[in-house]
């Protein structure tokens, strides 16, 4: 009698204790015990900084090719210039998502790759020779898309384009655009090299302003808005109901739009998996983080689902033209199918991944007003 009474009291006590323990033992402390600092170090040292240095090198090439072209405008210097532009544009795809630190505060992405470019505004800037490229109203008159227009879209044969570009006002504008890309990127790269890496790695907590939370949000935002919507969804008319073939990336050169998309998707995967920039090695990243919390998530293999989903997206691109503008115009269904595969991964990341990692999505769909 007595024993069972005590047992009862003790078991009540125990149940209470277990419940209390459970309460204090939810996701936050579990996820916090993952080595965020090591992950941040891997991101900064092996992915972000090398990608920025590489991008800056290609911009340096672009500046030099441009100077050579302006000095001696001919078919050979023009071809070198367009090749350097494409190389730099490809490497840009590997840093675009890192909209943090100086890149965020100076608005690097807005000044680098807002498209469709406003060719009427570009023409106006060139003819008036009065323009301030620091103004937000000139976002869409500069960067890679504006250079795409100047190098491929101002009309006529290659000879005629070279002829037009060699005029003083055109070459001045082209030069200003390319120099500005370099200067902005140099500012961001130097900041990472001088002090920001340390600040970034030291901010290793798990609040809305911590580095992990911010970069994961940047990554997701890039994927959703710039890769999925910008490169595929908007031109395919997913949001407006009307296809807008001219809204693809680099429409004037045309044949590079699929390549630029694939570079972007590769950069996304590399970051997620933790692949060191242009090396065969890897360090810890989101995939490992998701694997770490897997036991608390009914053993759901979210990381594998995401990686598999990207595989499905890539297989969709196989039947798609190198020229996405052409693809939209001739057989948009393939673009829509690609979009759908990309969209499934948005849900996997924005819902499953963010919940599993206990990270708040810090952006909302724009109000539209």
């Amino acid at each position, binding site marked *: 009698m007595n024993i069972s009474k005590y047992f009862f009291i003790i078991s009540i006590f125990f149940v209470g204790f277990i419940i209390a323990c459970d309460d204090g033992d939810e996701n936050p402390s579990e996820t916090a015990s993952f080595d965020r600092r090591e992950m941040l170090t891997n991101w900064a040292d092996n992915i972000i900084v090398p990608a920025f240095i590489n991008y800056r090198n290609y911009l340096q090439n672009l500046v030099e090719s441009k100077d050579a072209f302006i000095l001696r405008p001919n078919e050979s210097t023009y071809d070198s210039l367009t090749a350097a532009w494409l190389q730099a544009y490809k490497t840009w795809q590997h840093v675009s998502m890192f909209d943090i630190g100086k890149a965020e505060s100076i608005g690097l992405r807005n000044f680098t790759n807002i498209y469709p470019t406003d060719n009427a505004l570009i023409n106006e800037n060139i003819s008036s020779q009065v323009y301030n490229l620091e103004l937000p109203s000139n976002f869409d008159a500069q960067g890679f898309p504006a250079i795409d227009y100047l190098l491929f879209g101002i009309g006529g044969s290659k000879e005629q384009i070279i002829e037009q570009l060699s005029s003083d006002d055109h070459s001045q504008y082209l030069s200003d655009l390319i120099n500005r890309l370099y200067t902005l990127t140099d500012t961001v790269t130097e900041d990472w090299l001088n002090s920001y890496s340390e600040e970034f790695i030291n901010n290793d907590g798990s609040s809305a302003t911590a580095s992990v939370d911010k970069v994961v949000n940047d990554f997701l935002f890039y994927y959703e808005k710039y890769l999925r919507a910008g490169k595929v969804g908007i031109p395919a008319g997913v949001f407006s109901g009307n296809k807008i073939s001219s809204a693809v990336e680099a429409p004037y050169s045309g044949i590079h739009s699929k390549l630029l998309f694939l570079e972007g998707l590769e950069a996304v995967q590399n970051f997620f998996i933790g692949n060191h920039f242009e090396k065969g090695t890897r360090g810890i990243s989101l995939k490992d983080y998701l694997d770490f919390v897997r036991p608390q998530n009914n053993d759901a293999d979210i990381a594998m689902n995401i990686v598999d989903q990207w595989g499905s997206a890539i297989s969709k691109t196989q039947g798609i033209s190198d020229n996405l503008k052409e693809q939209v115009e001739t057989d948009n269904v393939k673009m829509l199918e690609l979009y759908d595969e990309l969209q499934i991964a948005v849900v996997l990341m924005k819902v499953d991944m963010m919940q599993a990692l206990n990270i708040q999505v810090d952006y909302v769909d*724009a109000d539209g*007003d």
Partner: protein
Amino acid sequence: MKPLILLAFGLVFLASCDDEMPRSEEIAIENPTTYEFLRNNESTVSFSGQTARINMGTELIGAMMDFDKTTESLLEMYANQTASGADANPYADASLNESTKSVKSKVAASSDFFSTNSAESARIKSDIGSWIVAQVEEVFPNKDVLAESGRAGQIADGSSVRYVSAKGLEYNQAVNKSLIGALMVDQILNNYLSISVLDAGDNMANNDADIVAEGKSYTSMEHKWDEAYGYLFGLARDESNPLATLGEDSFLNKYLSRVNDDSDFENIASDIFEAFKLGRAAIVAKDYQVRDQQAEIIRDRLAQVIAVRAIYYLQSGKNAIASDDLGGAFHDLSEGFGFVYSLRFLRQANSSNPYFTREDVDGFVNMLTEGNGFWDIDAATLDSMSDIIADKFDFTVAQAAG
């Protein structure tokens, strides 16, 4: 406390519904499923004047971002007449030019709040006019300059461009969102749903006797109620079923839609529509008690829409400042400024009192604009304003911000 009052109100309401002792001429209320009312097979619903004013407001707001406009042309769009009072044709839509109606004449012009308060009415009309003028005089000349503290110009909000005053305020947003209170909410709550307007003159006797307005299919009282409805639903694709396409203007309708999208307020649009519909049916049935009860429901819910949106933008602005997104913050705070300005026109249910006095709103505006305005404002100020607003209602700051 509040739920109890609501419960009591509900009981009274139920009791009155249950009361089956008809007055001599009372007819049962026939509440239709859509906002459709007929007399001799002809629709009795009309609110073309409200639709016209919403359209005039839309053109005015758009024109404030057209750098070729002058002070004169924008003020003509506000008043639909020239500075000297002559006829003007300022709109792109020709039918608006033919109209004799205007936005300005109905700003802060309700019977209950402003008929004996012409000084404040004039002040509000002139506040809005002054922001229109300031857009041309302060912002237009600096359209190609980067804004900084104390200097008007442009600022990036993501990849969008915003044009702000020296204090960071977008005057077009201030005008747009202030009109929601000063025009739409004031006209609905304090004019057309007011007993002083619904029952003015012979309205009740005429409605009781089914005497229609001269040359019209509706009684004067029916029409007043519909004019209230028109300020909220005047641009609806299907005027009898406006909830199917909520969010069709840039004014009150749009923000009812936004608040309704927040799960904390998910029934608010349907509450308002149902109250409009039942109230109108009650007028047909000559049941003025039910009519007035519906007016109170609309007052209660529309006050929530404005207050929720004011807090929402103050909080969004605070969060954007915390993440160093000043352009985004200024845009939120500019919208917030207009909703805060609109608080003045909200009216407590079952009362003729406003929720916020002139002094309250002037205090808020001062908190937002003192010194260098949004460039200087801090989180504590925005939180304190949000708390003061939320304290008057049954929802929390967190619910409004969500």
